[in-house]
C-alpha cells in the first residue's frame, strides 16, 4: 500500500494548496497535517513543509512555527530517516527547529524578490538528489532567502557534500551561492525556490517535478 505524503500547515502557511496539488499531480497521496496536532509520522512516506509567512514572521521567520507541537513528530521522523522537504518558509522553519544548520536572513537587496532563477544540483547522495538532471529553472519569492552560517559550518557543509543546490547567478547574497541544503543523514532537504510552482510547462518550467519526485519516490 502506498503511504501518504504529509503536508504541514502552520498559521500563515500559504503555499499548502500548491504543494498538495503538485504531490497529487506526481501520483502521490497528499494529506494535510495541522501545526497543533501530533501525528503518527510512521504512516507517512515523506513530509513537506510548504512556504508562506507562518506567524507573520514574528520574532524571526520560522521561529514560532519551529516550536509547534507537530514539529516534535517531524523531528522524530527526521531522526528515523523519513524524507522531509522544506520549501521557502519551510526551509526557515527547519533551520529554526535545528533540523538543518544555518539561518536565512534578509536578501542583500533588502527587497522581496519574485523572479526566476537557475539552480544547479551539487549534492549527490540521499533521496533528494536522485534527480537525473543537473540544472533547474525555478521561481523564487522571498525577502529572507540569504543563507547564512558561520565559516566553519559552511566549510563542513562543503566538505561533507551537504549543499544540495546552488544558484548559478546569486539573486540574494546567499553565502556560497547556497539555494538548498541537506542534513547530515541527507533525508532532510530544504530550498528557497518553489519547485511546486514549476510542475507543468505552462507554468514556465517543469523542472520542479524531478526535484520533488526524487524524495517522494525514494521514500521507505
Amino acid at each position: 500500500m502506498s503511504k501518504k505524503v504529509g503536508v504541514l500547515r502552520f498559521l500563515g502557511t500559504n503555499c499548502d494548496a500548491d504543494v498538495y496539488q503538485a504531490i497529487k499531480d506526481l501520483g502521490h497521496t497528499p494529506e494535510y497535517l495541522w501545526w497543533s496536532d501530533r501525528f503518527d509520522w510512521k504512516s507517512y512516506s515523506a513530509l513537506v513543509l510548504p512556504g508562506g509567512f507562518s506567524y507573520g514572521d514574528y520574532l524571526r521567520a520560522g521561529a514560532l512555527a519551529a516550536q509547534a507541537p507537530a514539529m516534535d513528530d517531524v523531528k522524530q521522523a527526521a531522526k528515523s530517516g523519513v524524507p522531509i522537504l522544506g520549501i521557502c518558509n519551510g526551509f526557515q522553519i527547519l533551520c529554526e527547529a535545528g533540523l538543518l544548520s544555518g539561518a536565512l536572513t534578509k536578501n542583500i537587496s533588502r527587497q522581496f524578490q519574485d523572479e526566476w532563477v537557475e539552480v544547479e544540483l551539487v549534492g549527490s547522495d540521499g533521496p533528494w538528489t536522485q534527480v537525473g538532471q543537473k540544472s533547474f529553472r525555478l521561481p523564487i519569492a522571498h525577502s529572507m532567502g540569504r543563507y547564512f552560517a558561520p565559516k566553519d559550518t559552511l566549510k563542513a557543509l562543503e566538505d561533507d557534500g551537504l549543499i544540495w543546490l546552488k544558484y548559478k547567478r546569486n539573486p540574494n547574497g546567499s553565502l556560497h551561492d547556497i539555494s538548498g541544503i541537506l542534513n547530515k543523514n541527507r533525508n532532510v532537504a530544504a530550498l528557497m525556490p518553489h519547485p511546486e510552482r514549476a510542475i507543468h510547462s505552462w507554468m514556465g518550467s517543469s523542472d520542479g517535478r524531478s526535484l520533488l519526485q526524487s524524495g517522494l519516490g525514494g521514500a521507505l
Partner: protein
Amino acid sequence: MKYLVTIMPREEALDPQGRAVQSTLNRLGFKVQDCRVGKVVVVDLADGSNESQNLEAVKKMAQTVLSNPLIETFEVRTL
C-alpha cells in the same frame, strides 16, 4: 556618542506578536502571564560633543520617526 532607544507597544494597544510569542512559550511549559515585543534602535551621533543637545535630538527622532506615540512608548538611554 551612542544612544539606545527602546520602543514598546503601549500597554493598552493589542500586541499580536507578543501574544503569539507568549502562547508559544506557555505551550513549551514556561509560565508567562504577559509578553510584549518591542524594538531596540542604537543610534551613533556624528557630533557627540553637546550631551544635552544630543539627547534632545535622539528624543526628537524617537518621537517623530522611530515610534508612533499613538500606539508606542519609547525610552532613551546613553550607552
